[in-house]
């Protein structure tokens, strides 16, 4: 700014008016955007409790949590050994089996393929874990990606064992 163009009252008024209008419009626009976010009734359903008593070793169930399928599998001892003896450098997304379970018998994970969101089929594929029929991703008995286009292991949700036979997901 050169010396003879000093800041006038009008400049000040323009800038303050403009700033107020811009801040006001932004504040008003937010509710119109936020109304599409998950609402209170959706958030209220954010955790689900599951009774584990009926599940025998080698069986699994699929439950709905936040509208997504969650696999709960009671693994057989063979599956657990198979999962824990895999070397980390063989894995595209290296993660130890012990980091993916709280109790090795119970494998709990979100049943959504990390490729494009289909639901993998259980006890299928080259690694005897899960196989996604959409684009051919193979997961092992720990739900880790071994072969195919998926980039990551199946996601582990937050959960706690409330007692021996009850788990709370979310």
């Amino acid at each position, binding site marked *: 700014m050169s010396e003879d163009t000093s800041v006038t009252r009008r400049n000040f008024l323009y800038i303050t008016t403009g700033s107020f209008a811009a801040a006001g419009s932004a504040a008003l626009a*937010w*509710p119109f955007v936020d*109304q*599409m976010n998950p609402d*209170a009734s959706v958030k209220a359903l954010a955790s689900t409790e599951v009774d584990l008593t009926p599940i025998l070793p080698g069986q699994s169930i699929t439950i709905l949590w936040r509208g997504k399928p969650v696999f709960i599998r009671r693994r057989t001892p063979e599956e657990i050994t198979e999962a824990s003896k895999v070397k980390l450098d063989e894995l595209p997304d290296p993660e130890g089996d012990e980091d993916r379970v709280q109790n090795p018998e119970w494998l709990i994970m979100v049943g959504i393929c990390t490729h494009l969101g289909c639901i993998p089929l259980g006890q299928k594929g080259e690694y005897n874990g899960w196989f996604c029929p959409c684009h051919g991703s193979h997961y092992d008995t720990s739900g880790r990606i071994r072969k195919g286009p998926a980039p990551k292991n199946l996601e582990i949700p937050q959960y706690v064992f409330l007692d021996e036979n009850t788990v709370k997901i979310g």
Partner: protein
Amino acid sequence: MSDNYEPSSAIGKWFDKRLPLLTLFAGHVLPYPTPKNLNYWWTFGGILTFCLIAQIVTGLVLAMHYVADADQAFNSVEHIMRDVNFGWMLRYIHANGASMMFMAVYIHMARSLFYGSYKEPRELIWIIGVFIFLLMIATAFMGYVLPWGQMSFWAATVITNLFSAIPFVGESITNWLWGGYAVGSPLLTRFFTLHYLMPFLIFALVILHVWALHVPGNNNPEGIDVVQGSQDTVPFHPHYVVKDMFALVVFLVIFAGFIFFVPNLLGHTDNYIPANPLQTPEHIVPEWYFLPFYAILRSVPDKLGGVILMVSSIAILAFLPWLDTSKVRSAKYRPLYKQFFWLFIADVILLGYLGSQTADGLFLLIARIATAYYFIHFLVLMPLLGFVEKTKPLPKSISEPVLSKEEREGQATQST
């Protein structure tokens, strides 16, 4: 003006040559010549445009959460109020927005009545406006039915039953409207569809309204024609853009006051009770903006007669340009009409009050007198005044009344 407008940027030139949107915008907004004496009563056109857009935008997001089904509508509105992020605010803007829009449209119409804006050559602007008003009434009524509370349900019942007054085919028409033998889910679903459609029809009519306005240009408080090539006009931007904006901000302060402090003041508590087809609320009244027409409906002891009179009370507005025989537009120069104008406003407010009261005894008698006066104003006084009224002399130009005596004399010698 638009004839010699040339976009400054290269992209603007390229675009405007292929689609002259910029020329259109420049011609109708930026330097559009506007009488320099427009007062704040002229800001309500802009305010109404804002209201319409606000209603469309809030309505769009409400429709994302609302369910148009008799079993779920009420709960889905409660879901909006309690669960949806900012749902309470969006709904309160929309519900109070309807009231604010009617407040603005009544002022806008009263402005036209006072300053004679409906007269030659602006008859069509006024008639399009009457159609916009009719669509607004239909839209507001259907919107009021959607929450499916007690008032919604019984408003729908009463208003659709108006059609049963039509001789011979009345019952078939109401059954057709309801899609059944009483108000229920089919009616709710079709009302939702139409409620969604009509604001866009209003928007289309608003474009015609403004288009028709821009042919003769604005009327003004003096009610005289702008002298071509004089200094009677100023460019719309920045003069009236800033004036409209300021009025809009003041209007929004009042609007926000309703939304955040008394959001249910203009509503009825009974509408927070889910619709019950087995019980009518004790005292059923429409929203405040329909009260004068409701009073007219109730003041006639005959079913068909009441409906005809109520419809006529709005339809008669469309004929006003020919019912008014006076050549002088502005009430400023019509001493008699000026008094009758205020009497008419008082009459409409009185009708509104009577519409909110029970229709018997003294109230009913006064309502009948007020209804009669409403029609006398249009059918007797307006045609008669043009012949008996001695109007004041009109100024030669918009500038003349504000010039000093010497300047006026100077102007007179120049013009001779």
